[in-house]
């Protein structure tokens, strides 16, 4: 007899019938009725009307019946909060049942009833269960704390459950420890500043001990928790790594990936000359390779993560190329990822094999896969110079297949190869021209037109070819139109006699018949250039182009670092920071890898040195949500979110933010974007606060060969809500070799997101050519507002009220008082009082940040000692 029979009743008056059965005296009948109710619930029927009747069945010795009633409660309690109170008594009673299975069941279900009203009744039973003698009950109670915290965080804190939960980390039972860790991590994740997981060497030791004994899932909770810890030095880091590496032999892929995460992170702290560092690198490769024999979905997660790992530490898998060869029956998502990793691992040593494989793939049937394979061949050519020739001939072979999309992809990549190796492979142009007619995708058409224009002097019938495109000019996409315009101008400059008519035709098409401003502007510029100074035109249009970069599609280094900290999670699968896809994670700290132990100050320098040379951000994955922003500055943006700024935690401001205080007014004009990285646009600048207005003072220089127009600027969300107060005022087009100075007033009412470092600002600048992204740091002092002078009395009172955890103390070395005080004054740091104690001068100062956070400081100066001690207190004014 199966349960399916319960699904069959569909008669009218069913609810009424069920009601009668539920109230039956016969136990068996009652149970059957409850089963029918659950069956109805399963198929989506509303049986909430039976609430009181079902709850009446709750008091029973029959465990199965009890489970069913509990299941019903979980589903309907939320919609019937008043009735749910009826169940409270039974819960309380069940939590004291002699049978641990029932006690655990009660405490588990209790937490799933998300009704605020009844939560407080559940505190006492929960407290008892947390101390229960049976570990099965304790482990269930530990999770219940997280559930309750989700419903009513304040209640959990007031009841002291968090402390009890922390105590459970020292429990004798590994399952209890694991669940306590999981619950604490969960709570800490939703309350990033709670400082709940106060990890110290003692707790770490407890976790590592439990790691050996708990279930596979418990091991994952513990490893994920460990990954949040930052060891004090390289020795501690090594000893943790040593205890984590055995997990790499676990049969569960998720355990392996979580262990890899811990190791990848802690490895950062190990000196590279250490023997152990090498050993660890060697230990990582085999388990990563084995992950590829897991189920396809797990393979996919593993591959996405391997993609990150090979970018961060290419040495780990450099000899493992073969395992990424695609198998015929791999699902498409696995194939595409393997291909991507193959290109990343391609080197002179293995290029022959890789190319043979890629050629094989390019004759498959799956269009997306084939396209990517063809593109991969082009990328190999650009990456491994020695292989370029072979790649080109492979591409030519593929063009001979005449498979439409293969030809188009091949032409797009050949264009890039021309850019990388000028004057080497132009002999193939003739073959390319043969396929002109079959091109129907804008990217391929644009690439072909570029080639024709660029090599017009070698193509006899270049004018005919370009003319043929011109016929349908208005039906082309902008990409093709722009390229066609430029190509014909190039052609004209090379062969002026025969092509005058053609160039006039395209110029008039672009300037008179088009409503696309980019196209029109470009047309006018060419027109003016050609009519005023043809020699200059030649220099501009036919100028030598900068070579294209070797590595493409690399993930930007800071994002990569963050993603490494998220190995195994969705972030690592999407290659996006969690803040880009998790709602309400604005205040969440971006994770970063720890600095190398032996040179704490040089960490950023080391990161730069380690990082791959040039990164061309692909539009898809860079800077997360910056891409989603509209690039025109909005004045009617979201209302200022000052409260978010406060919530992000005063401590962090003290932690990292004050480093920048010490560089208060150093006016650093920095090059934010070198011309190489922004298609000829160089942006340099600085920040200043002038007459109460924050300004971004920039110099835009056009180092490209074409005119730049349509400038616009946008900021990503940042720690203090900095946002442009108006549009970027670049009114005239920026000619080649011209620079312009722009002052952009800023306000602080933009959206807030905590950045790391705190004063990091991610900016997008757009012009007619492209959108460019960069990050820069502003001096915190620009945020100090003019009314930051606090009344003496208020200062004294406030000083005492600020809790200790908001305090930070540090030393400033080699400072001179006179110079210092004038600088301070100029930066809106106000001296409130001064007194002398024991031969030390004490200066008391106040300043206020644009988001309403006050900083009170005590500056202790000892005569004759150039080192000052600063004590800073943070105070958030509640208004």
């Amino acid at each position, binding site marked *: 007899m199966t349960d399916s029979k319960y699904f069959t009743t569909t008669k009218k008056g069913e609810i009424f019938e069920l009601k009668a059965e539920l109230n039956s005296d016969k136990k068996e009948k009652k149970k059957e009725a409850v089963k029918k109710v659950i069956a109805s619930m399963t198929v989506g029927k509303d049986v909430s009307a039976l609430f009181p009747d079902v709850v009446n069945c709750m008091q029973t010795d029959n465990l*199965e019946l009890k*489970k069913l009633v509990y299941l019903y409660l979980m589903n309907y309690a939320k919609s019937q909060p008043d009735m749910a109170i009826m169940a409270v008594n039974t819960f309380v009673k069940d939590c004291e049942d002699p049978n641990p299975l029932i006690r655990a069941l009660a405490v588990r279900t209790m937490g799933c009833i998300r009704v605020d009203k009844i939560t407080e009744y559940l505190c006492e039973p929960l407290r008892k269960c947390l101390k229960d003698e049976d570990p099965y009950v304790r482990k269930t109670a530990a999770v219940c704390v997280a*559930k309750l915290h989700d419903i009513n965080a304040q209640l959990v804190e007031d009841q002291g459950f968090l402390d009890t939960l922390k105590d459970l980390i020292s429990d004798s039972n590994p399952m209890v420890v694991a669940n306590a860790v999981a619950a604490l991590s969960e709570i800490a994740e939703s309350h990033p500043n709670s400082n709940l997981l106060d990890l110290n060497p003692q707790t770490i030791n407890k976790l590592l001990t439990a790691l*050996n004994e708990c279930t596979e*899932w418990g091991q994952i909770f513990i490893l994920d928790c460990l990954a949040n810890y930052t060891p004090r030095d390289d020795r501690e880091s090594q000893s943790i790594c040593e205890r984590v590496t055995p997990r790499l032999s*676990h049969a569960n892929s998720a355990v392996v990936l979580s262990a890899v995460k811990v190791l990848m992170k802690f490895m950062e702290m190990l000196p590279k000359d250490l023997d152990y560092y090498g050993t660890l690198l060697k230990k990582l490769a085999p388990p990563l390779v084995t992950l590829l*024999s897991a189920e396809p979905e797990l393979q996919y997660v593993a591959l996405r993560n391997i993609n990150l790992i090979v970018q961060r530490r290419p040495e780990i898998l450099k000899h493992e190329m073969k395992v990424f060869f695609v198998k015929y029956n791999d699902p498409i998502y696995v194939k595409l990822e393997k291909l991507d990793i193959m290109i990343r691992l391609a080197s002179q040593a293995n290029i022959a094999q890789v190319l043979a494989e890629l050629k094989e793939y390019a004759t498959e049937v799956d269009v997306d896969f084939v396209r990517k394979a063809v593109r991969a061949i082009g990328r190999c050519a650009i990456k491994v110079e020695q292989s370029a020739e072979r790649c080109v001939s492979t591409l030519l072979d593929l063009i001979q297949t005449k498979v439409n999309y293969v030809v188009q992809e091949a032409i797009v990549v050949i264009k890039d190869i021309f850019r990388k190796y000028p004057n080497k492979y132009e002999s193939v142009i003739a073959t390319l021209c043969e396929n002109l007619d079959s091109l129907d995708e804008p990217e391929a058409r644009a690439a072909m037109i570029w080639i024709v224009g660029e090599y017009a002097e070698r193509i006899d019938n270049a004018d005919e070819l370009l003319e043929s495109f011109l016929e349908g000019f208005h039906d082309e996409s902008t990409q093709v139109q722009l390229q066609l315009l430029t190509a014909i101008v190039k052609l004209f400059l090379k062969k002026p006699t025969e092509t005058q008519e053609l160039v006039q035709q395209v110029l008039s098409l672009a300037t008179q018949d088009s409503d696309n401003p980019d196209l029109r502007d470009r047309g006018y510029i060419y027109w003016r250039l050609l009519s005023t100074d043809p020699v200059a035109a030649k220099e501009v249009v036919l100028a030598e182009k900068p070579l294209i970069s070797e590595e493409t599609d690399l993930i930007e280094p800071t994002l990569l670092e963050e993603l490494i900290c*998220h190995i195994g999670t*969705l972030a690592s699968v999407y290659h996006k920071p*969690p803040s880009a896809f998790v709602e309400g994670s604005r205040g969440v700290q971006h994770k970063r890898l720890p600095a190398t132990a032996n040179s704490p100050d040089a960490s950023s320098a080391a990161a730069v040195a380690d990082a791959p040379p040039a990164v061309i951000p692909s539009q898809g994955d860079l800077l997360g949500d910056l891409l989603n922003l509209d690039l025109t500055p909005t004045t009617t943006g979201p209302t200022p979110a000052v409260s978010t700024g406060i919530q992000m935690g005063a401590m962090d401001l003290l932690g990292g933010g004050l480093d920048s205080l010490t560089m208060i007014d150093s006016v650093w004009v920095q090059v934010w974007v070198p011309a190489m990285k922004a298609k000829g646009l160089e942006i340099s600048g600085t920040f200043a606060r002038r007459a109460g207005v924050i300004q971004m003072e920039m110099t835009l220089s056009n180092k490209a060969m074409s005119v730049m127009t349509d400038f616009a600027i946008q900021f990503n969300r940042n720690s203090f809500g900095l946002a442009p107060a108006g549009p970027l005022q670049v009114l005239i087009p920026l000619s080649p070799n011209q620079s312009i100075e722009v002052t952009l007033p800023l306000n602080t009412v933009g959206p807030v997101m905590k950045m790391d470092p705190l004063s990091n600002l991610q900016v997008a600048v757009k012009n007619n050519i492209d959108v460019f992204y960069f990050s820069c740091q502003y001096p915190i002092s620009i945020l100090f507002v003019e009314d930051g002078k606090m009344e003496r009395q208020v200062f004294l009172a406030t000083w005492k009220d600020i809790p200790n955890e908001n305090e930070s103390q540090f030393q400033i070395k080699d400072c001179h008082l006179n110079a210092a005080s004038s600088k301070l004054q100029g930066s809106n740091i106000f001296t409130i009082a001064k007194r002398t104690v024991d031969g030390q001068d004490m200066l008391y100062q106040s300043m206020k940040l644009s988001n309403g956070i006050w900083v009170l400081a005590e500056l202790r100066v000892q005569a004759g000692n150039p080192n000052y001690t600063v004590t800073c207190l943070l105070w958030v004014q509640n208004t």
Partner: protein
Amino acid sequence: MSASAVFVLDLKGKVLICRNYKGDVDMAEIDHFMSLLMQHEEEGLICPVMSHGSVHFMWIKHSNLYLVATTNKNSNASLVYSFLYKLVEVFTEYFKELEEESIQDNFVVVYELLDELMDFGFPQTTDSKILQEYITQEGTKLEVAKSKVPTTVTNAVSWRSEGIKYKKNEVFIDVIESINVLVNANGSVMSSDIVGSIKLKTMLSGMPELRLGLNDRVLFALTGRDKGKTVMMEDVKFHQCVRLSRFDSDRTISFIPPDGESELMSYRINTHVKPLIWIESVIEKFSHSRVEIMVKAKGQFKKQSVANNVEVRVPVPSDADSPKFKTSTGHAKYVPEKNLVVWTIKSFPGGKEFLMRAHFGLPSVENDELEGKPPITVKFEIPYFTVSGIQVRYMKIIEKSGYQALPWVRYITQSGDYQLRTNV
């Protein structure tokens, strides 16, 4: 951290059963799943993760079911997929087959299991043998003993119950090696490796301590012994029961085994293995008229060994017709629904060579659809033999009652992912 809710859907996307673990994702979001999946399928970009607004779906497919987990956090994706596969494993052990019908027929137990397997998104006890001790299918006959939590659930040894008794204490050890080979159309071996697996069938009383000795090269190097052939295992994965830190420090494989059948360990060996069955093929396609196939299979293993149940699967165009075969041994069969010729040889001695010829007609009107180039695949099984030469040197069994127990060892080599690309 992981899943907010877990759903079991039928092929049309109808929810058969679900469990809301965290309540932070609207349960109605699952309605978007099927349309998302269709959309991805149309674009040819199927992906195990899909998102709709702020909700992310992680899913797997098993027979006629989709198992889907939802979340709106940065969940541990590998944990979620491992868990979903664990669900399949547990349900299969409970219901023999996991499919639509078994979910419907057992919905009460499914609910109970879902409640026990995961709590608030955290996977809990997932060992089906232990679960079966207190979540029973015959719920009606609830006995007192079964309503107690087995201490095993929270024990450090969470995979074996106490008080197991056998009249005769025995362990059966199966050493199974699978050969993965990828051969290019020009006959060069692109990649090859061995994936080994040691499976146990434990029929031992009490709480026995076991120690398994292999001819592991690292171990021999560690202990300074150098006798006979040793095997270098590239990567070793162990069942929950093996003490990993012990293995890490001195390569000792020590454990308390789960009762009954289990996979104790798996390993990977990355050496060049000679493909045990070598295939040479000539496939000639004459458009609009016929396809001629000639396949030669050679056993490249010891003469004393015999490969059993050899199957050579040769792809043919989907529009081929009127098959004709000629084989020097075994028999060939056309499987039109898979576009394959399957050549079966019951017993294939080492060193021997066999031949198969096939002839197909092709329609005069050409099939427009592009077809892929599926490889030739081979299946076989060679008993009493491991390619790597791995050997069980001993299995020590110690139980406090002091009984004598016998280990039995069996070796098998079989084909894994064994693919030979063709040039047609």
